[in-house]
């Protein structure tokens, strides 16, 4: 039904797109503002170094910010790695095998998706603080050896909330999977292990990749759970930005956002290319 579309529908669609993109345009434009307070646009900055890109260059000198960026990437990469493996395993288990407690496992997997993030966040906070306090006092650890919240706790929490999404995506891919292809491999002398690496994995790879991408973006984007599970030295970009928002906002923040948006766009385009090539 592509024949005739009411002009009102087109106008409405354009208006919604405008609503979606106007804030992003504002963010990018203000990254070139010459005003440090960055409330009113006072013309394009042109200062040494870097001229119009002054604020972008200023970012590089911001050590706090650079370490936040590094933390964010470390957390996202590590948690994606583990949640992709664990999530794919779970998808295989649920789609392929019958085992006692299967229905129960499926129900449990949905929990991270339906409970509010903040509840998950404080739950993990309560768990680790109780656990760490117990360990620290039981073994009367010296102050520098005490367990605290940090990168480790954030990574584990990110794995927990992203695993179910990986499982969902990989399962969808497994759903249409023709098992006889695996039987054919076994018939042609490939044992289970080789069948998995040579046939199963290559065929579900697009699903696994999509799951990994989803886990990665969920981790990059997460604020709430990180907020509750982070600790000294584990500030991520969203947490850092949140901290700034409540104090002062300079065009540096816009430059950071611009770079972020550009990176996301590039990553999405690469992902689309990969997907198209995989067919």
């Amino acid at each position, binding site marked *: 039904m592509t024949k005739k579309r009411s002009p009102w529908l087109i106008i409405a669609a354009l208006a919604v797109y405008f609503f979606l993109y106007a804030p992003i345009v504002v963010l990018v434009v203000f990254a070139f503002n010459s005003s440090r307070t960055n409330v009113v646009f006072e013309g394009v900055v042109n200062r040494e170094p870097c001229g119009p890109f002054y604020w972008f260059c200023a970012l590089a000198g911001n050590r706090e910010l650079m370490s936040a960026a590094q933390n964010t990437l470390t957390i996202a990469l590590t948690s994606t790695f583990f949640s992709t493996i664990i999530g794919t395993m779970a998808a295989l288990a649920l789609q392929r095998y019958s085992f006692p407690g299967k229905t129960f496992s499926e129900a449990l997997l949905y929990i991270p998706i339906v409970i509010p993030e903040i509840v998950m966040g404080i739950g993990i906070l309560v768990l680790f603080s109780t656990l760490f306090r117990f360990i620290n006092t039981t073994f009367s650890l010296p102050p520098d050896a005490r367990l605290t919240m940090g990168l480790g706790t954030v990574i584990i929490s990110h794995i927990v909330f992203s695993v179910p999404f990986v499982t969902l995506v990989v399962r969808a891919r497994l759903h249409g999977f*023709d098992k*006889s*292809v695996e039987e054919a*491999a076994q*018939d*042609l002398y490939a044992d289970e292990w080789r069948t998995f690496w*040579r046939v199963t994995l290559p065929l579900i790879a697009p699903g696994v990749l999509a799951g990994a991408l989803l886990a990665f973006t969920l981790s990059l984007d997460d604020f709430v759970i990180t907020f509750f599970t982070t600790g000294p030295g584990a500030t991520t970009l969203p947490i850092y930005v949140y901290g700034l928002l409540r104090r002062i906002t300079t065009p540096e923040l816009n430059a950071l956002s611009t770079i972020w948006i550009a990176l996301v766009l590039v990553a999405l385009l690469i992902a689309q290319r990969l997907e198209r090539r995989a067919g």
Partner: protein
Amino acid sequence: MPEYAVELRDVSKRFPGPSGEIVNAVKNVSLQIRDGEFFSLLGPSGCGKTTSLRMIAGFELPTEGEVYIHGRPMGQTPPYRRPVNTVFQNYALFPHMTIGENVAFGLEMKGVPKAEREKRVKEALEMVRLPGFEKRRPRQMSGGQQQRVALARALINHPEVLLLDEPLGALDLKLRKEMQLELKRLQREVGITFIYVTHDQEEALTMSDRIAVMSGGRVLQVGPAHEIYEKPNCKFVADFIGETNLLEGKVIHQHGRQVEVLLAGGLTAHAESDQSLVSGQQVFVAIRPEKMALRPYDGAHNVYVGRVEEVVYIGTDTHYTVRLAGGQRVRVREQNDDPFSRPLANSGDEVRVYFDQTPARVLTE
């Protein structure tokens, strides 16, 4: 003791069904398949033929009984250690590999060096008449071509037995006929035992040296095509293979192979049986439509009066539906050898139906 290519001894297979019940897919099946034979497992869907094949391949393990391949008991041997290869119903080509990689897969797993693999892939593709298709992808090929690739992929390994699971099911009629001949030719060429699963009786009859007819998880009859067709040993086989008129009756007496049967309406039928029957036993007389005639001939053992209910002209033959005096409805098939294909009778005509004793088989259930 003769060694068979494949032997099934008292094999049963039970599955847990979807709602917890137990499904008896295969019940006490014993089969002996000779070396170099083209052997078909024939039956309707759900008769256990595919499960039997899968137990030979090793995709399923028997609940009871044992599968032997050239005398070796297979036990728990996984599929990748069995000297058999399979051609799957949907071909099951690896979509992410080229045709060359697909065909070479088995050799690669066995550790055959690359140079030799390439040589043998080339030969195998030539054998199935797809020379030079190495670099193609499965999805760029037609169903018939994929079928040939699946054959090459299996045969390149020189299996002791080739298992084929309804391999022609997805092809259209014309291509199917072509592939039937092709398969037969390949089997003669390579001399490997073929075990062929099909629900298509015509396919089984044209291709096989021997056929096992299965139903409800059991093997009902094993034998060459003409034996299965001419001498079915039970009602199911008679009915499933070709078309049959079944006349219900009671045994009057038996004299050697010759049996006299009393049909409804006081008709008497002269038929044959290899079994020994007792007087008064409830039986069926099975007679093929083409073994019945409307044209009188000398020495017919059975002659009945009837009335034509329907005449269907189908080119080479004409089918007449006749209601006999005893109320039985039979189909009679007459060749149209008259130059003008004039019908022998019209609807409503009174006719006589003739048939001999030998093709009329007495069947108990």
